[in-house]
């Protein structure tokens, strides 16, 4: 915990975030800033082959999987790529399945994270997501998690959770969790 966490202070100084921790209104306010800045993907269509993620969301989504997977990401670049691609596809399935109220919140969060001032000041990431690395994603997650604003902690939890479930649910990750899969005798019996 770092109560005097710098990026949030910077945000406070800029007058973006004066709301109490956990206030749902803060997202609305920040969402409005993003819309004013003309960056919202709210009206953008889903990327080709996807249901909900837009083309602009995709680099962020893949990087989220990479950042959360960390050293568990397979070393073989082709296998790693496939895991990231499958991760993004699973994120898309999960977000498409949310009810409208939750989708609105996730849209605001994704827009915010792609909005340069927020990414830089709250996330501590200088590069746009198209050029950033898994380490940059981890910097973002660290900053959101360390923030004294409940709202940003909530964003951290949401991102960590979705990144975790879409990676650790993939068979390619099972050996790293030393998870043998369902008991072999049962699989054999079920498919006999």
């Amino acid at each position, binding site marked *: *915990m770092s109560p005097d966490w710098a990026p949030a202070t910077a945000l406070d100084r800029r007058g973006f975030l004066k709301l109490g921790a956990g206030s749902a209104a803060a997202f609305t306010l920040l969402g409005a800033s993003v819309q004013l800045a003309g960056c919202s993907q709210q009206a953008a269509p889903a990327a080709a082959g996807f249901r909900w993620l837009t083309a602009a969301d995709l680099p962020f989504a893949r990087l989220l999987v990479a950042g959360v997977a*960390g050293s568990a990401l397979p070393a073989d670049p082709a296998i790693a790529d496939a895991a990231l691609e499958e991760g993004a596809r699973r994120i898309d399935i999960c977000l498409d399945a949310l009810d409208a109220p939750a989708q609105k919140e996730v849209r605001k969060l994704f827009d915010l994270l792609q909005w340069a001032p927020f990414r830089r000041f709250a996330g501590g990431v200088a590069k746009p997501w198209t050029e950033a690395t898994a380490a940059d994603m981890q910097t973002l997650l660290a900053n959101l998690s360390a923030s004294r604003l409940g709202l940003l902690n909530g964003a951290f939890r949401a991102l*960590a959770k979705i990144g975790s479930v879409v990676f650790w649910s993939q068979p390619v990750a099972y050996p790293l969790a030393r998870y043998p899969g369902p008991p072999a005798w049962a699989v054999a019996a079920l498919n006999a």
Partner: protein
Amino acid sequence: MAINDLYTDGLAKGWKIRDASTLTNDETLEADVVIVGSGAGGGTAAEILSAAGLSVLMLEEGGLYTSRDFKALDEFSSYSKLYQEAAGRATSDGAIPILQGRAVGGTTLVNWTTSIRTPKPTLEYWARDFGLKGSAADEMAPWFAKMEERLGIAPWAAEPNANNAVLRDGCDKLGLHWKTIPRNVRGCWNLGYCGLGCPVNAKQSMLVTTIPAALDRGMTLVHHARADRLQFAGGRVNGLTVQALDADTRHPTGITLNVRAKHYVLAGGAINTPALLLRSKAPDPHQRIGQRTCVHPVNASLAVFDREIDGFHGAPQSIYSDHFLWPEDGGIGYKLEVPPLQPMLASSVLARYGDALAQDMAQLPNTNVLIALMRDGFHEQSAGGRVRIDDSGQPVFDYDVHEPLWNALRHAFVQMAEIQFAAGAKSVRPAHIDAEPYASMDEARAAIAALPMRKHRAGLVTAHLMGGCAMGEDRQRCVIDSRGRHHETENLSIFDGSMFPSSIGANPQLTIYGFVSRNATALAEALAPAAKAAA
């Protein structure tokens, strides 16, 4: 060994099952009784009402999945298809992730089979504070016994898996209460994948028990069908509009079903039932609909052992402890249990990323997790949350956590660590963003005392949704009467987890089965003569 697929056989003998996603024209459907939702409450009601000779129509917004769909035992596939919002549902601020089922069989399709009767003090509280009549422990006992018999509920006879044994052994060492869990299974293979749908029809969910019985009696089941709005007029419901959903069950196809029934039963579960009533502008003179929605807020403690725990295999829940459920000071108590530990579910509660998460996951086979389920809704400062609807009529669930509940959660972090160390844990870490693995109880106790107990920092989750349409004779506080009939509306009953005035203090399914079997029997007696006369 080929597992008999009940539904393939049933369709061959003429079961009336329709997939609304394939409909190309609007239709009007009629029945004596329409039941919205096919989970614990809906399934139980369907069997009883159809056995009484009533024509029953059951609507389910999710899809129909049967044993053969569960053979892969794949977490992502099951969580994304069988759960509300693909298992991504949460309170409005995201602080409490919510697991709830959404398929034929409802949450019973994916629950963990723990089957415990309503605690006596809970029944007494509901009678005293909400005017719930005829529901004392001895009056309910025959209904619980009937459903235990119906669903094969009996204490788990096999050895608990090592994950559950930690709870038993830790409690034993410390002299704390523990008990073997009764499960609703017949011929269980002890696989541990109950949360993904049982591949061998061993779990006695509604999918394989009451719904087939009702289909045998001529019930019509329409899935991919979402109840959208009830029409209220003159103290009655006189219609229900239903949206057909597409194959993915996410979006309406534009086809509408107009349902007309003599009686309407809502069994969409807590959150969805209150939302349907709010969307339909149901009469609600005291603004009680959606209020007091309780969740048994759950926190968790992770322990690493130097022996194999393999919490991903074996019956997921077989031991519980009620030692801290009813504290002597009258404060908020909690029940202790364990969750199954397949990698996707385990990773979702860790709230870590990168190398730290990878290290946690590499310990999975040596990890035990205990969970504490808080008994919310019994105290003034823990009155549950509130379900409301947004502009488009979709549910939004606000849930605040106040000081007494945080104190109980902190208390549980300490007690869970004690039990884990007593059972031989090498290190223990509370599921909290600011916690580390602690190597001794002294270290854990000191650290837990200093953990900031705030939303998003302390990890919370729920799989138990209760309340929002409280049941009792006190019309100022309750939406339905003691038999589940809506106070303001002649032909409307609520038969699901939303009926409870507070949380239960035990896993909900048997309480739902018991109350619904009693209330649906009363309803059948009230309606059946009329149905027979009309026939």
